[in-house]
C-alpha cells in the first residue's frame, strides 16, 4: 500500500495485520541528525524493525511510519522537540516485513555546547491498556484527517 508523507512524497510498502510483541526488558534506541535521518541504531532496533543496520543508517526515520498513525501525532512530536522539549507518545511502527509493533517512545533534543546536534529516541514496552486507548484515538484522528 502507498504511504503518504508530510512532504507530499510517498512510497509503496507492505502492510500486514500482525503484531510483533515488544521484547521484555529491552530498550530500542536510535539517534538522528536534526532532520530525522538515522545516525545510530542499537541491536534491539535492528531486531524489531527487521531492517539491517546499514539499511537504517542514513535512512529517514519515517521508514517506520505506519499508515494507521495520524499525521498530527508526528506534527506534535516535531513541534515539541524543535521547541527544545521532551516528547512522549505511543507509536505504532511498521516493520520491513509489513507487520507492526507498538512502543512507548520518548524523544529528546541532543544539545552540545548549547547547540542542537540531533535527537535521541528511546522506546520501551507499552501497557496493553495504553496501546488500546492509543489505537482508538489514532483511528479517530485519522478519520478526521481523511475527511478534512
Amino acid at each position, binding site marked *: 500500500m502507498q504511504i503518504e508523507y508530510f512532504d507530499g512524497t510517498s512510497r509503496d510498502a507492505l502492510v500486514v495485520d500482525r503484531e510483533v510483541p515488544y521484547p521484555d526488558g*529491552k530498550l530500542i534506541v536510535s539517534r538522528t541528525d536534526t532532520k530525522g535521518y538515522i545516525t545510530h541504531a542499537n541491536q534491539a532496533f535492528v531486531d524489531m524493525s527487521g531492517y539491517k543496520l546499514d539499511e537504517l543508517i542514513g535512512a529517514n526515520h519515517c521508514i517506520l511510519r505506519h499508515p494507521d498513525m495520524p499525521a498530527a501525532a508526528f506534527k506534535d512530536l516535531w513541534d515539541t522537540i524543535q521547541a527544545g522539549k521532551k516528547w512522549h507518545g505511543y507509536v505504532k511502527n511498521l516493520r520491513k516485513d509489513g507487520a507492526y509493533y507498538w512502543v512507548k517512545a520518548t*524523544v529528546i533534543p541532543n544539545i552540545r555546547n548549547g547547540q542542537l546536534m540531533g535527537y535521541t529516541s528511546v522506546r*520501551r514496552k507499552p501497557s496493553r491498556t495504553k496501546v488500546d486507548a492509543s489505537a482508538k484515538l489514532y483511528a479517530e484522528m485519522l478519520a478526521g484527517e481523511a475527511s478534512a
Partner: protein
Amino acid sequence: MSYVLSVSPDFSPDHLSGWFIFNTWLQRRLEEKFHLELYDDFESQRGDIQSDKIDLIYANPYDAAMLVRDKGFKALARPSGLSDEAIIVVPESSPYQSIEELKPGVRVACTQDPDVNMMGMIMIEPADLDRSTIEQQSAGSYVLVAKALLNGQADVGFFLKDAFDDLSGLIRNQMRVLVESQIDVVHHTLMAGPKLQALAPKLLDELVAMNQDDKGRSVLESMSIKGWDAMASEDTEFMIDLIDTLID
C-alpha cells in the same frame, strides 16, 4: 593539595577494601594526597557534591547528568564490560508468571539505588503500574530485599543484576526472575571534578594501563573490575541523554 575520592553508595560491601586499596594506588601513582570518603546514602553524598567537597567519584549513572551538567565533572573511564542491569524477582512460590499480571497495590522491595529503581519502574509499566500505584518498601541492601521477599513481606523485588548474582545459591534458588533488563549502555563511571582537571590526562593514562602490571591487576581484582576503558565525552553525553529519556 589534597583530593577527595568517593564511591557511589550502591557499591557492594564486598568491595569496600578494594576501594581503600585503589585509593592507596592512586596516591602512589599520582604522587598526590587522596582521601576516600564513603557515604551510607545517596542524599548525603549528593549534599557533599553540591558543596564541591568531592573531586573524583565512581558515580552511579543516574547521578552522571548532574555531575557533568551542573558540577563540571568529566567522565574519565568506565569499568570494562560492566553495565548496570536491573532484574525483577519474585519468590519461587509466587503466583506471578509475568509482569503483566502484577496488580495495583503490589508490594515492591527495593534499595535506594537510583538507576536500578528507575529501570525497575520502567519494567513494571507494561502492567500499568507507577510509583503511585505500588507499595514501595525501601531496604538498606539487596540482601534485605531478598529477605523481604522470602519472609513474605514483599511480592516482588528490584535487584541490580550483579548484586542478585552475588547472593548465595541457597537464597537465589528460592526466587525466580520475572524480567531482566538488557540495556547495555547504562553503567557506572569514574568522573573527575573541576579541581582535578589538570591531573586528569595523567590519571586516565594510569587507569587505562592499570591491568598491564601485576600491582595494578591485583588492585583491580580487589574491586572486582577487569580494567578501565577510557570514555569519550560523546559517550558520556549519549548515556546522559538516554537516562534523560527514561526520567519523567
